[in-house]
């Protein structure tokens, strides 16, 4: 397990969630469960007002061992969580060892980059059961997929990329001189 025998925090988790009541309740349950086993968690609520959240999230992600992503079904784009996700992806490129755990809530589909990881399922109506699942997965820390998965490309990916790029090259060539 990821905490020491003295009960001191040996692991730090960033919890990414939407800024609404449903996600908030679930996030609270997850934080509570993690705290119960000595894992410290941070999320946007813990950010101070004196510094822009963008700089705070970068600092926090640099200090975390894992990121838990609560992903809601039909999540509205252009929310702050999209930007948060971009920072998480950036942190993953910087530190490929960073572990990522997507939690798909209420039948949500993993956004493209997170589909490469090993998501677990959860329900916003059952915050404690979902928190228990998160805790179980975090407990198997070594089994969690790391951010290095984000940059893996299959031969099929490469073929599609080459085809797409060939079309774009043709379009550029057809532009007026």
């Amino acid at each position, binding site marked *: 397990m990821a905490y020491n025998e003295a009960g001191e925090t040996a692991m730090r988790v960033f919890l990414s969630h939407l800024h609404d009541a449903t996600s908030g309740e679930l996030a609270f349950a997850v934080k509570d469960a993690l705290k119960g086993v000595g894992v410290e968690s941070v999320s946007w609520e813990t950010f101070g007002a004196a510094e822009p959240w963008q700089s705070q999230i970068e600092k926090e992600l640099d200090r975390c061992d894992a990121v838990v992503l609560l992903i809601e079904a039909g999540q509205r784009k252009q929310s702050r969580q999209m930007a948060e996700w971009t920072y998480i992806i950036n942190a993953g490129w910087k530190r490929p060892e960073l572990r990522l755990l997507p939690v798909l809530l209420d039948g949500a589909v993993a956004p*493209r980059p997170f589909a490469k990881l090993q998501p677990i399922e959860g329900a916003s109506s059952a915050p404690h059961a979902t928190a228990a699942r998160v805790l179980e997965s975090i407990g198997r820390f070594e089994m969690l997929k790391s951010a290095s998965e984000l940059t893996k490309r299959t031969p099929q990916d490469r073929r599609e990329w080459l085809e797409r790029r060939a079309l774009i090259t043709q379009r550029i060539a057809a532009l007026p001189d």
Partner: protein
Amino acid sequence: MVPPYEVSVFINCPFDDDFNPFLDAILLAAVACGLDPRSPDELGPWHPKPRLERIQDLMKASKYSIHDLSRLRGEGDDNFARMNMPFELGMARGLWLSDPARDMIVLTDTTYDLPVALSDLGGLDVLPYGSDPSLMLRRLVGQFAFWPGATDIDPNRLLPLLPEVHAANGAVREEYEMRHWKKMLLAVDGIVKRRL
């Protein structure tokens, strides 16, 4: 075949020399991720169609857009503000409202100025890049990862290409004394083809 709309990204950014390193980062990130950067400049400087119509047409033809809002302060002797970028962001937002499958990235130089200059954007995912083209490239590729039309790529593979792209596009800008969109794209496309 992928319809051009699905991979087209409209570029709304300052057109000045100081922005050139950042434009190069945008072009490299987009082309490397299999996106097609679009600008009203692509039709050449003497195209008869009014610029606003060209912008409208290209925005409609692009599923994605990138908006840089780094020029927030008055400039020159008359201290004029540059309003094209926020105006075009508003146009793109209008299109997004009627078609939420579209997506956009809003970039800013610093985190401090935009909430004051354009407070209506509060709560939106604006990405600051701190006057650093390589950080801008990372931010862009990170957001492209969520766009179905783009291909994932490790930005650590792209960063070494940035000086090469800047040199090549600098040569184009010097030769044509303007930002020749087609020539710049061909240069970036060639580098991506050779190096990735």
